[in-house]
Structure formats: C-alpha cells, structure tokens
C-alpha cells in the first residue's frame, strides 16, 4: 500500500515518568490521529531517538512532548539535549508540568520549547500541536523539492561544476 506523504501520521514521542499521565497523553495523542511512542524517562527518549549511540537514527519523530518534573533527567535537561543535537534540534519540543511556575515556563520557552502545557493536558492543548508539525512538514517538502530539481537539471549541475573549476 503506497501512502502519500500527506497521509502519513505524525509520530509523537511522549516522555513522562508517571504511568497515569503517560496513558493519558498517549490516549489524547491517538485520539488526535498521531502515532505515539511513550517512554518513562529522558534517557529512554534519547535512546529511542538514537542519540546515545553514534548510530544513525532509524525512527522518524516529528514532535517530542515531555513532562518537566522527572527523576534523573528533567524535561528541561531533555529539551536542552535535543536542541544541542545537530541531528535533532529541528524536532519541535513541548513541555508539560502540573506546577504553574512562570520562571520555569519562560525558561523552557526561551530555550526552544514550542509550547508549555499545564497538566492535566486537554484535547484543546493537543490541538495546538498540529501547526508546529505542519510547518515542519511543509519546510521538509520544500527542501526535498529543491534538491530534486537540482538532481534533475544537468545544465545547472554543469554550471556549478564550472564554478568549481574557476575556483
């Protein structure tokens, strides 16, 4: 079965150390037609992405949504690691917390989080994710089209080659 790019479900990686909240976010995401992988720690999230091994990553993750308060690696630590990674910095990250602490919220948003949701997360919050995902997909498609044009046109390739020779 061939799926057009526009029909492929977005894949969201959800990170939360609490089982109940993990079940809840998973349900909310699936109800909104996302494919979901849920893990219980930042470390496992990085492993899933393939960040810990120097292997190339096999999985495509379109968005990461993470709890803030987690033992070991916090959601903020995870956010920083993602944004500092050359392979993954363009993946949108959303943080969540049951605590309404403005300095915490601002810090996450300033350091690259697209959104900050207060728990309990609602369906209306999950609806806010789509624009971030669509924006990335459109950008990726534009980039793909550009590079395909370059491959197809021999004249342009020759021109570039000439430029190189001149240099």
């Amino acid at each position, binding site marked *: 079965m061939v799926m057009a790019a526009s029909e492929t479900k977005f894949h969201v990686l959800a990170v939360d150390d*609490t*089982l*109940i*909240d993990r*079940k*809840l976010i998973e*349900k*909310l995401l699936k*109800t909104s037609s996302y494919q979901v992988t849920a893990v219980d720690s930042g470390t496992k999230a990085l492993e899933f992405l393939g960040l810990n091994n120097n292997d190339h990553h096999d999985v495509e993750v379109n968005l990461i949504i993470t709890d803030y*308060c987690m033992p070991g690696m916090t959601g903020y630590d995870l956010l920083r690691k993602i944004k500092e990674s050359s392979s993954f910095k363009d993946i949108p990250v959303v943080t969540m917390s*049951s605590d309404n602490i403005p300095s915490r919220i601002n810090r996450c948003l300033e350091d690259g989080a697209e959104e900050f949701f207060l*728990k*309990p997360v*609602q*369906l209306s919050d999950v609806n806010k994710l789509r624009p971030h995902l669509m924006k990335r997909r459109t950008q990726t498609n534009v980039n793909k089209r550009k590079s395909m044009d370059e491959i197809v046109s021999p004249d342009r390739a020759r021109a570039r080659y000439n430029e190189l020779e001149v240099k």
Partner: protein
Amino acid sequence: MDFVNQLQRKFIDYSSSLHREGIVDDQFTQLRKLEDENSPHFVMEVASLFFEDCEKLINNMAIALEQKQGVDFKQIDECIHQLKGSSSSIGAMRVKNACIAFRSFSDAQNREGCLRCLQQLSHEYSLLKNKLQTLFLLEQQIVAAGGSIPRVH
C-alpha cells in the same frame, strides 16, 4: 428495554451525584469523552492504575511518618506531589484537595498535622474508590443487559 433504560438512568443520576459531591470534577468528564469503541474501558483502566498508585503512596507516607528516628519530610513531599498530580489527572477532586492541605503541614514539618491529613486522605481515597467501583459496576450491568453507556456530550 425498560430494564436497560432504568439502569441507564441510574447511571446518569449516580454520575451526576459524583460531580455534585465533588468526588470528581470536569477532568473526569474529559476522560469520559476520550472513551470510544477502540477503548471502551479507558476510564476504568486509568482508575485502576490510580487506585494502585494511591494505595502505594498512602502506605509509603504512613511508614515515613512512623519513623522514630525522624520523619523524612522530603519523601512525604514527593509522595504528595505525585498523588496531587495523578489525582488531578484523573479528576479526583477531593483527593487532590486533601493533598493540597497535606502539603502545607508537610512544608511546616508538622508530624501531627501530617498524620491527620493522611487520615483524611485515606478517607477521601476510600470514598472515591467505593463510588467509582459502584459506577463501573453499573456500566457493566448496562452492557450485560445489552444496553450502551450513556455518553457525555
């Protein structure tokens, strides 16, 4: 058919009473709305997880408060934080409020106050568990009688 209608009405009335008494709040309604053909027992499943979680945390706090050599209030605080979070996620309003009250005594490192709060918390938890189990039983009776659970709109 009439029997099913009676059960359904009972279910609706009982459900309303839970909200009226503050046992559950709007978050519980939100969870209900997520139930569909793919996951008809979602609320029941989440509630079971919550019961397990709650019992474990209450137990841990009881043990922590018993320590003769000194109460680890940091541990108590962590338990309260977790319980407040999960009760909030499931919509267990009175349990959540009991946690909020508990927190102030834990912050003040007031052992006696904490013991009273823990008792209150246990009471609210028992109430919630009994009522939800009654609700879930009604659900099962409706389904067994061939009816459908009245859905929230």
